[in-house]
Each structure stands twice: as structure tokens, then as C-alpha cells.
């Protein structure tokens, strides 16, 4: 059982991770991550009846990705991540956290907002006292049709 103050800290961790990535503040996002952090985007394809991995990096890989992205041509429309923490379950010295995720994209010209993707965060959190860290994040996407796509991980 996770104590209520621990759950509160974990929920804040999840929400802060969204705020950091929404702001493209990669340094702030990585500050929320453990040294052994691993990030994966996965989804299931009913078309080929297979689980697929669309992105998979350790912490070093994420750092490199964030360094490289400004060198590329990307869609500049901001996206907004909305997470709702559903479950927090104690596991060893950490917790397994499942959150609902909706991602909205707002067009720069005119500001129209559209639902971009839905899925779930499956996070493994290390409980560092009052400062929990993300040890692992698997973004399980339900949405697979992403138009011309996006460079920044959800």
C-alpha cells in the first residue's frame, strides 16, 4: 500500500513530467527521471496482429534525442498532455503507476485544438523519499493514426 503522501508525490511527478514536455523543457523532464530511466512508446496493431515498439531509448538515448531534435525540421504546433493517474501500486522499493493520457495538438495559425492521441502511461517509479523519480515509462498508445506525425515523445 502506498502512503497517501507518497501517492500525492507520485501524482505530482506524473503531472510535472507532462508540464515539462509540454514546455519542451527537456532538462526539467530528465531531472524527473532516474539514471536508469527507460522510455518506450508501444502500441498493438490489429492489422498485423502484433505488438509494436515505435520508440525505445534509455536515458542517454533520450538526452541525445533531445539534443538532435532542434537540428531537424519539425511541426511547431504545441501539444498538451493531459494525464490522470488511475492506479498506484507498491512494488518493492517503488511503485507501478497507470495513468490515462490524452494528447491535444493546437494549430499555431488560429489556435484550433484537436485530439491528437489517446493512450496510457505505464510508469515505474522509484520512491526517493519525498522526491520520487521515473525509472521507466511505457506509453501505450491506442491511437495509431498520427497524420504527419510528431518528433517529440509523448
Amino acid at each position, binding site marked *: 500500500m502506498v502512503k497517501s503522501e507518497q501517492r500525492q508525490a507520485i501524482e505530482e511527478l506524473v503531472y510535472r513530467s507532462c508540464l515539462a514536455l509540454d514546455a519542451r523543457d527537456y532538462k526539467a523532464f530528465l531531472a524527473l527521471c532516474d539514471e536508469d530511466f527507460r522510455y518506450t*512508446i508501444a502500441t498493438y*496493431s*490489429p*492489422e*498485423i*496482429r*502484433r505488438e*509494436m*515498439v*515505435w*520508440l*525505445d531509448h534509455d536515458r542517454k*538515448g533520450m538526452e*541525445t*534525442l533531445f*539534443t*538532435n531534435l532542434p*537540428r*531537424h*525540421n*519539425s*511541426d511547431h504546433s504545441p501539444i498538451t498532455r493531459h494525464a490522470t493517474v488511475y492506479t498506484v501500486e507498491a512494488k518493492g522499493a517503488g511503485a507501478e503507476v497507470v495513468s490515462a493520457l490524452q494528447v491535444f495538438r493546437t494549430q499555431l495559425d488560429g489556435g484550433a485544438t484537436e485530439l491528437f492521441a489517446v493512450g496510457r502511461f505505464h510508469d515505474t517509479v522509484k520512491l526517493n523519499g519525498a522526491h520520487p523519480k521515473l525509472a521507466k515509462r511505457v506509453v501505450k498508445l491506442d491511437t*495509431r*493514426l*498520427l*497524420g*504527419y*506525425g*510528431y*518528433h517529440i*515523445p509523448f
Partner: protein
Amino acid sequence: MAKTAAEWSAPPKFPATHYVDSRVYTDEAIFEEEKEKLFKPLWIIACHESELAAPYDYRLFSHPAGVPLIVIRGDDAKVRAFYNICPHRGNTILYDPAGNAKRLTCIFHQWSFDSRGNCVDISRAEQGYQERFCKEDAAMREVKCEVAHGGFVWVNLTDDCMSLREFIGGAMDILEPYMQQPMEVFHYHKARVRTNFKLWHDTNSEFYHDYLHYFNRITGMMQPGYFDRKYTGFPNGHATVGSMQIQYDKYEGSKERAVGWPGLQPGGWFMVDLFPGMTYNLRTSVMRIDVSVPLGPNEVLIEFRGLGLKADSEEERRQRVFDHNMIWGPFGRNLHEDLLGVHGQGRAMRHGTDSRWVLQGREENNTIHDEIGMRHYYAEWSRRMGRPAHHPA
């Protein structure tokens, strides 16, 4: 000096074979004609055989001409294709995009078909039809179907079409040596983009746009051998692009693709563009296949597949998936850039914008920044459409 309206509308100072009128990308009537003249009579990739591994495995495919298809492996292991339209009341027979079905049963009135397209059951047939209509009258519509060129399932809607062998000709010769081992699809996704399907094929048919890709500039354009890559045109509008040695380790976070591909030189990269909208892309360790399914003159659904070898170990497959995702996945560096590029063309060329011409005038001895690949495509387009692409009205 910037152009006046008259100067903007004047034909470019190139031979007429070296530019295209923008209306070929926006005109509704031209698009409807393309479905009849380009997609209906030609061979199109519906899926890969690895998606139909077992008897009765099926896969749905929205044919670019507009026809919904079921591709199914029969009880005899043969792959066949049928309209996904019940001959009774025109309903959809199968809904899920893939599955396994010994019987193809329409949920509407429970008419049932086998994997060879025969009708095997009509609910209360005798009571309703007496001797006037029976199962033999109610077979599914079968379309031509072949498995070839790396295990892909090709379909053709026209009964008296040219053979697949004649259609492809020698265009796949450059890749056949590398497709001797069974392949397997590990990645599939679609992208729906507000652009014309030919603009996606154009992007796959010219490398001058490598300026769009930081990854390609670093690992390719700035490396020896890049400007030696050559285009070769083949009958029926197909074209190939020769290989070079990509320096993957020049991009931070990337590295030499050690897993490679049987018989392919390290860092090798071949492409085959097939008319009217398919591309084979063997890039060192991964095969990518694009199939364009146009939804309108300014909207296309592109199917992307990533393939490895069926014999891959777990580690080899993991590495191929990583290599694929680095540039070609939905979050990959290059695919997003390419899709943004054609999305931008779709914005600028949509009906009424006064976009007039698309230039294809670069001549560099058929090497990598020559626009011969596109010119070759539009020569075939003009032949099949019975009008020149530079003056389609």
C-alpha cells in the same frame, strides 16, 4: 525580380517534359480518371504473406480504386482476394482488419462463404428462392492475386490485365538478390495526409529533398559516393535508385547498422519506385514498403510497413526495430519531415491557391539530385491518362 500574374502563369522555361501542371494534383475529375486508368488496371500491393501465415488468416485492404478487398489464405494455403461486399444486399462481410475465419459470414442475413469464395450457406434458401437462385449463383467476386517480389500479395481488379511479370518487368531485379530469405512484417502504420498521392510518390522519387533531412545530410550527402547514386527508369513508370555506403555513425545517437542484411554491402541502400504509388526501400537493415491509397485529389492514406527476416533472432529483430524507428517510425526523424513536406505541398496546391507549376528540370546525368525519377513517372502518367501532365485540361 518577383513575377507578375502573367509571368507566374507562363509555362516554365524548360522542355514540357520537365514540369507538371499543378492541376494534376488538385482536379477532382482527373482524380476520378486516375482511379479508372491507373489503379484499376494495374497491380497493387495489398499486404505481405507474413500477415497471412496460417490457413484462413485474412487481411482487409482498401484498394486505391475504391474497392474494399478481403485477402485470405485458403484451406489449400493459396492466397486469394475477393470483394469485401456481400453479393446479397451489398453489405460489408468482414469488419476487423485482420483475423482468422474458416467461414466468411455476413452478419446481416448470415450468408456464408468459404476461403475460396464459394457461397456455402444461404439462410432459408429453399423457402425464399425455391429453384430460382442457389449457392452457386451467390459466389464472391474474386480478383486476380499473386504472391511475389519478396512475399508481397499483389492484387489486380481487371480480369484481362497484363501479367504481374509484364507489369514489373526488370524493375525489381536490383532488389531480388536481397529478397531470397523469407521476410516478416514487424511494423505497420498509416498516415492520413491532406496531399495528393503523387506528391508522396514524387518525394520517394527524388533525393534532392535530402536538404530537408538533417540525418540524410550528415550520413549521406556529406559522404563519399552520395552523388554517384543513379536512377534507372523501367517500362510502366517504375524507377530504381542505386546504392551507396551510408555512414550511420556520423549522426549522434546512431551507429553502424551492424545487423545488416544478407548479401547487402554494409550501409547499402536500394530503392524501387513502382507506378502508380508503391515503393520498396531497403536501407541497410530494414525493408520499408509504402503503399499509397488516395482518398481524394488532396488526401492520401499511406500504408507503411517495416520488415525484417523471418529467421531473425530476438536481438536481431530488436536492432532492426530500433534502426527502423530512428528515421522511419511515426516518431522517427525522417518520416515526419517527409510527411510535413508533402503536407506543405498539399496546403500550397489545394484547389484555388493559384499554384501553377511543379518543376522537374534538374539534369545531372541521372545521378541522385537529377529529377529523372519524377519525369519518368509523369511520362507514364501522361501515356496512361492520354494527356500530357504539363497540360492536363
